[in-house]
């Protein structure tokens, strides 16, 4: 794990950059769910910091809090006034989080099970947290995109953002699924290497989705003409047109 410390620092910097950018957007729009996303990215950066310093207990605690914030963001962005599995997923996250911390204490203190069993259990619980968040994020983005995917009224770059959310959600699911296969501290195996690659894809996807640089926006919008011409009409013309 420690061999990858420089990579974690790079990941951390990207989280902070995305968080700062979103904070700027929130200051302009005052949309509260963007502020939740800002907190999500900063908490994620903090989680990586604990990983860099090798403090697994704080890493676990922060991962649980980050996932809860992530679930709140999905609920507030996609599920207001709609049937939502939020309470169920929140309960599952908290239970799995508690089990992850308990199994870590067992691993750390070498009580009840041998260390490798406790570490495996810990990784299963932590991995499940990522899978829950990733699956819900994927379902929320995919089902929303389906509603307006064929509509010309929505700009292609917006649809591109939803596709990027789907992409990084799949990466998060993969991360969670591979976590149980990671080795005990200080060693490296195939799962850890794949996780590093998937993490690069995830962070690239998240950064591009939420910062959406101008070149990417232009690329998505190539050949698109906005259908908005409503500003040309006066109130009388509008009311007459409605009659």
């Amino acid at each position: 794990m420690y061999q990858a410390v420089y990579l974690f620092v790079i990941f951390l910097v990207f989280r902070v950059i995305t968080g700062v950018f979103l904070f700027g957007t929130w200051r302009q729009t005052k949309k509260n769910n963007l502020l939740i996303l800002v907190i999500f990215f900063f908490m994620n950066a903090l989680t990586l910091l604990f990983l860099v310093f090798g403090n697994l207990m704080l890493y676990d605690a922060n991962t649980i809090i980050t996932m809860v914030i992530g679930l709140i963001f999905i609920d507030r962005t996609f599920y207001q006034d709609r049937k939502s599995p939020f309470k169920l997923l929140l309960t599952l996250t908290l239970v799995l989080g508690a089990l992850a911390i308990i199994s870590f204490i067992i691993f750390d203190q070498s009580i009840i099970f041998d260390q490798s069993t406790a570490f495996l259990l810990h990784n299963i619980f932590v991995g499940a947290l990522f899978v829950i968040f990733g699956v819900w994020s994927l379902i929320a983005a995919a089902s929303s995109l389906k509603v307006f995917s064929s509509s010309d009224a929505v700009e292609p770059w917006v649809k591109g953002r939803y596709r990027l959310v789907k992409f990084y959600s799949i990466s998060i699911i993969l991360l969670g699924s591979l976590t149980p296969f990671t080795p005990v501290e200080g060693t490296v195996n195939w799962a850890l290497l794949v996780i590093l690659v998937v993490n690069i894809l995830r962070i690239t996807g998240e950064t591009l989705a939420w910062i959406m640089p101008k070149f990417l926006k232009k690329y998505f919008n190539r050949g698109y003409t906005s259908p908005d011409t409503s500003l040309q009409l006066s109130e009388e013309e509008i009311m007459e047109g409605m009659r």
Partner: protein
Amino acid sequence: MNITNILGEYLSKLTDRKPMVCKGMIRLAVLDKHPAKTPDQLRYNELKDVFDTTLKTRLENVSIPDAEQISQEIISYLVKNQSLLTMA
């Protein structure tokens, strides 16, 4: 991203009027309630409230049949597409 586009297109389907006119209608309904704001600057709950009040009143004023039902349908459409207010 202009949220008026997608909602105006939908209002056009519901009322059988031109999309350009329906987008203007939404813009006017927003101005009735929030004179200093554009539809894109409104939060989800504010937009929902506009559809339930000023848009409905304007639809009734031009004698659109079933204004109440149209108002509810556009609210349902907003609920389904609420993420656009954050993602777009």
